[in-house]
């Protein structure tokens, strides 16, 4: 067992709990979403082709300062950490509120943060965009497919497909072989794509010939920054997935306690109870995995890549399983358009593909944990 890569666990044990400040933040976000993010309204918006509620986004991003949680105060943000941003994502997952939080406030923001501190015009442009994004005045989106995984070279073609939240973006971060560029949305050509998950719309982004945008970084710096954005996105996506799984379990428990068949609440049948109890175990485990990833990102732990891939491999599966059980245990009503279960299933399945599938993250883990594949 001398070859074990297991680190000595000691003083650096991650903090897996929620602090009081985090609990307060959760309560505030939940209140806001409870008042403003109505699932029926989301459904109606979706059908009209526009699921976003700009007023809700303003209240969350600017009003509550949620857009700037990851950004230090001196760069125009709130100076909080990934732990707090994770709490916001848990609540957004629970409420299924369409908002460009993961894309703008996490992935793009973290990409820009990795570039902060450069000298010259590139540094100045980055700092300005970062401050605008952190204040919630500008929505910034990294123009890469939502399925792009950390640890892989992202595509650099002239047109990029399956870019999430591009339609709401003011600025697109465009990754090219020679660096990273900020392009105003007006200078890009957006073609909406019909998405599996209508609450997180997708588009193809093409930049017209001759439009270069503002250069933010050269090749090497840009690649590292994009990797950082994708890694952070993957790590915090686990918290959104946790929120999805929690809602699906709670709603299923509530429904099966009330729904009667054979003169009994269906939730009293052992076959169903065991399925919900197993789901609860998965949710409890998903919470530990998601908190661990958020804490590793917040503390800059050496373990961060492993923590993120563990969380993605586990929480992706847990969210999909919870959403699938939610549909099945709701039975007929779960298959309808009017019941919100399908919104959670579509989001959960799309999230499973987002930022690296569980299989992709297990490949990463095979290397990180020294468990090589057969030759």
């Amino acid at each position: 067992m001398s070859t074990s890569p297991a680190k000595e666990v000691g003083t650096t044990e991650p903090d897996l709990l929620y602090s009081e400040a985090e609990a307060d933040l959760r309560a505030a976000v939940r209140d806001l979403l409870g008042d403003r993010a109505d699932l029926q309204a989301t459904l109606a918006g979706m059908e009209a082709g526009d699921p976003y509620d700009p007023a809700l986004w303003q209240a969350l991003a600017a009003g509550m300062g949620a857009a700037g949680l990851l950004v230090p105060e001196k760069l125009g943000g709130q100076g909080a950490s990934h732990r707090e941003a994770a709490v916001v994502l848990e609540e957004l997952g629970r409420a299924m509120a369409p908002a460009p939080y993961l894309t703008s406030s996490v992935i793009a923001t973290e990409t820009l943060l990795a570039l902060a501190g450069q000298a010259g015009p590139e540094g100045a442009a980055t700092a300005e965009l970062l401050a605008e994004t952190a204040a919630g005045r500008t929505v910034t989106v990294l123009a890469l497919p939502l399925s792009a995984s950390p640890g892989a070279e992202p595509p650099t073609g002239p047109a990029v497909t399956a870019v999430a939240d591009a339609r709401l973006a003011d600025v697109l971060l465009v990754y090219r072989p020679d660096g990273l560029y900020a392009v105003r949305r007006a200078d890009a050509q957006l073609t909406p794509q019909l998405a599996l998950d209508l609450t997180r719309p997708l588009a193809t982004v093409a930049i017209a010939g001759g439009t270069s945008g503002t250069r933010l970084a050269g090749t090497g710096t840009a690649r590292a920054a994009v990797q950082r954005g994708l890694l952070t996105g993957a790590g915090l996506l686990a918290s959104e997935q946790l929120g999805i799984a929690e809602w699906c379990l709670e709603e299923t428990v509530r429904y099966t306690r009330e729904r009667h068949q054979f003169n009994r609440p269906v939730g009293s049948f052992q076959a169903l109870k065991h399925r919900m109890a197993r789901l609860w175990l998965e949710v409890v485990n998903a919470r530990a995995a998601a908190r661990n990833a958020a804490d590793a990102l917040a503390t800059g732990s050496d373990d961060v890549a492993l923590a993120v891939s563990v969380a993605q491999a586990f929480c992706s599966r847990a969210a999909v399983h919870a959403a699938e059980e939610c549909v099945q245990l709701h039975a007929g009503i779960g298959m309808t358009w009017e019941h919100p279960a399908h919104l959670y299933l579509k989001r959960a399945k799309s999230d499973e593909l987002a930022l690296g599938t569980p299989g992709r993250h297990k490949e990463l883990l095979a290397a990180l944990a020294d468990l090589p594949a057969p030759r």
Partner: protein
Amino acid sequence: MTDAHELRSRTREFLAARPPAGTDRADFLKARFDAGLAWVHYPPGLGGLGAPRTLQAVVDAELAAAGAPDNDPRRIMIGLGMAAPTILAYGTEEQKRRFLRPLWTGEEVWCQLFSEPGAGSDLAALGTRAVRDGDDWVVTGQKVWTSSAHIARWAILIARTDPDAPKHRGITYFVCDMTDPGVEVRPLRQITGEAEFNEVFLTGVRIPDAYRIGAVGEGWKVAQTTLMNERVTIGGMRLPREGGMIGLAAATWRERPELRTHELHRRLLDLWVDAEVARLTAERLRQQLAAGQPGPEGSGTKLVFARLNQEISSLELELRGEEGLLYDDWTMRRPEQVDFTGRDIGYRYLRTKGNSIEGGTSEVLLNIVAERVLGLPAEPRTDKDVAWKDLAR
């Protein structure tokens, strides 16, 4: 009120008065009990100081640093983990004074006479009878799955004292003297070939009424304290990454590249992720308990580890290929504790089958999670208001 600082100085004073190197082990442990440093959350005079439970770690760290002898927690686990909290909660003053000190020092080993051949998961259906005879009770029946019965001095016992009452109400809780001539202990050979457990036959065993714990007919309530403590024991552990059974499988994978296949690789990575997440969940539970925010998460830990241990050992047996066809030792032995790492993978595969049965089957624990944690309605029951003697058996 005792704080960590005061407890540390108290422990150091104790160590100065009795240097571990020059003190007999048994004398040291007795003195430690008398100084209130055995389990600090117990009352003064009973091995404790009435301090918060979490402060025990302060004492243990000081003692370990000084190389002090410990009571052997493995050999006396049932006494420490189950008998002691029950006696503390429900015992008389005489019972607490008589039993707790030798229990804690390990001079007297305890076992648990609860399960019966016909009453496993349905524990309250037990049929061992206790009949009042003057100042004594006369006990007759059979118990099973009793670890340590062959070395135990005392047992906690539940027996039926009123067959006419519904099954949960006619039970009484006793301390049973294992040296009584009516107690017969037979090894129960298991699937692994060894006998960790025993069958215990009770024939006219005489128990003085002074050894009854709690009121007559209230034994089920008392037993709940014992059972709750049984399930809590895993909660406070701190595991390093790959600290459980996954570490053994991962080591085999690394050391034996010629055994690797793609199918096993996929399963190994799945289980590695699950094991790492289970470790984080146990760590999160530990942090919750330390912060004084106990949640219901503890009810799930045993369920997850039971499944993982079984799947990981099953995978590792397959990984071994030809060697997996062999077994290390079928000798009928009577180990005092389970030893997973000292035996081969075949043993682990077989022994982990018990993880989803002992201490509550996974099916029963899932019901408990569903009803007590999620608040789902119970299945209709036909046994609650029927006299025990009229139940189908």
